[in-house]
């Protein structure tokens, strides 16, 4: 599948900025009293209007000037990236629910197997690294990564 990056960036970012501009009065309320400071809406408005104008320019470049950059989206090629990102989203959810080390013990063996790794050393190294990083952050940086419920952290 050929993706026209200029056109799609223009459409996606144009709609995104337009939607947020419509929501601006609701999402950024004016302060209850006037302190003399400029409105808190100025910077987000500036950013969103600039994005909207640039998006329109991108769409114009693509449709009228025919200036385009194509990205060849091959599902066979991109699928591993999508699966790895999905695994990392699951990893995030698991860290919050079962802790950092337990989440690593669940997700990374699956990821390594999916990547075609069959040597036990790679699995052992990853799991030891998870434990080492957990304790390094706790003892060196005094940052307790989420632990298995009931096991500190």
């Amino acid at each position, binding site marked *: 599948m050929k*993706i026209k990056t200029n056109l799609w960036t223009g459409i996606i970012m144009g709609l995104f900025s337009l939607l947020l501009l419509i929501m601006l009065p609701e999402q950024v309320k004016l302060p209850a009293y006037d302190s003399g400071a400029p409105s808190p809406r100025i910077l987000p408005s500036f950013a969103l209007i600039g994005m909207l104008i640039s998006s329109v320019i991108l769409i114009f470049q693509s449709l009228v000037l025919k200036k385009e950059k194509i990205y060849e989206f091959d599902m066979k090629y991109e699928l591993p990236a999508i699966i790895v990102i999905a695994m990392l989203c699951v990893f*995030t959810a698991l*860290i919050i629910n079962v802790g950092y080390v337990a989440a690593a013990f669940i997700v990374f063996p699956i990821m390594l197997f999916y990547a075609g790794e069959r040597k036990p050393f790679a699995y052992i190294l990853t799991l030891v690294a998870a434990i080492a990083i957990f304790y390094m952050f706790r003892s060196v940086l005094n940052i307790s990564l989420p632990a298995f419920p009931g096991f500190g952290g």
Partner: protein
Amino acid sequence: MGDFDIILQALGQVLSFTNIAVILGGLLLGIIVGCIPGLSVTLGIILLLPLTYGFSSPDTAIISLLAVYIGGMYGGSISAILLNSPGTNSAIATTFDGYPLAQQGKVKKVLDISLFASVFGGMFSAILLLLFSSLITKLVSSFASTEYFALAILGISLLAGVSGDSLPKGIISGLLGIFIACIGADAVTGVLRFTFDSRTLRYGIDMLPAMIAFIALTQVVLKLRDFIVHKGEIQDITKIDNEGLTATEAKSIVPACLRSSTIASIIGAMPGVGGGVAQFMCYNEARRASKRPQDFGKGSYEGVAAAESSNNAVVGSAMIPLLTLGIPGDGVTALLLGAFILHGIQPGPTMFTKQGVVAYSIILGTLIANVALIAVGLIFTRAVAKIVQVKYTYLAPIIILFCFAGAFAATGNTKELIITAGLLVVSYLFVILDFSVVPLMLGMILADIMEMNFVTSMMSYDNDIFIFFKRPITACILVLTVILLISLMKLNKRINALNDAQVAEMAQRDLEEAVEVEEAIEDGKFEAP
């Protein structure tokens, strides 16, 4: 206290055991991430950034990150020479002569040339940084909030203009960064902005999880994708011999190093240009000035020296606008600016007056890191070269584990993990849309500085928006922004055309050589391997 006293005090601080240890560790980490194709100096900096929270002083933290930057620039040349695959963008020109020399069996010699040239270029620009930083800050010491606001505009505009092929995409990226930085409570009025009543967004999006998601994790995911698709094939490494660089050979490459270091220092000090551009300009200049231009592309010592001294010279000179004006010179210095802010240091003219010792410690740290690169390079290059062949399935999980731990360390709240995962998905979408995230990161980093100085200017001048055009220096900076943006875009186009021509020329030469070998085999002059 005069500048000299501050420098002496800073020197004592830099030469402490802790600082020397972090410099050596940072250099080694930099060489490792720099030499692995697909990883980068930015990844090394992001991995180390959360760990720097544990350092007692901010200058130690920044020095360690700079050591990664310096080591990474040299590390990029190792895989360029051994695998013909540059570890970093700044080492592309090194492959032109480095790999042919390695094929001729001169691996140790060419690695030594790379180390010598890297140290030469690095020290050259570090000395310039030491000499000119204080001078520039004295010139701009009278800057007020309006000038700082204009400088922030200058910084974002230049990077947005020169990142990627499309200016509108660069602008969207930079503005998106500013918008992301607006999410959460407004620092002046306390009003919540675009939180959508979500507790996760209430305190805004922190810089560190964003850096990790947009740069580090995205790199790892894409590299892992390539590993899986190509079934984990590992390129053969060229073996390292024992015959190093002689004194006569070292002497012969000094003029090329000097010329390249000078050009690269000037280019590096221009915000928004960076090492990728400098290497090709220096390589071409070295070929033009050489007594043996015919050797370039086939295995010229001067070619390797020019490419390597240029990319390391950029490190020190890119720090000049960062330290003196608070404007980053390239993507890596944009991250360093983020690191400065995370550690409570505000780069810019006031840094030399309010935090003079910290400023000079950082500059001297850069100088000492370049000296230490000689030792680290000579001792560890052979061992580090073997890491190039380590399977990515050994490295990727460890990097990912570090990334998530680092993101959590930003505030110690699990919301950072959710934000990291969310931004990773967005980042992958940006890859597909061919959208550079460097201006986005810079927008996030500079948004606070922009808004704070905008608010101060407005409150000081009765909300007169035209004050930015009434104050002469502010108006000059804004006009300069437009002029520089146009000229840098033109320059970038010319350099890209030059690069493409250079790469095409090399490819054509390789093809011709392959045809010659094939014909020779057909004629029976050689036996097919």
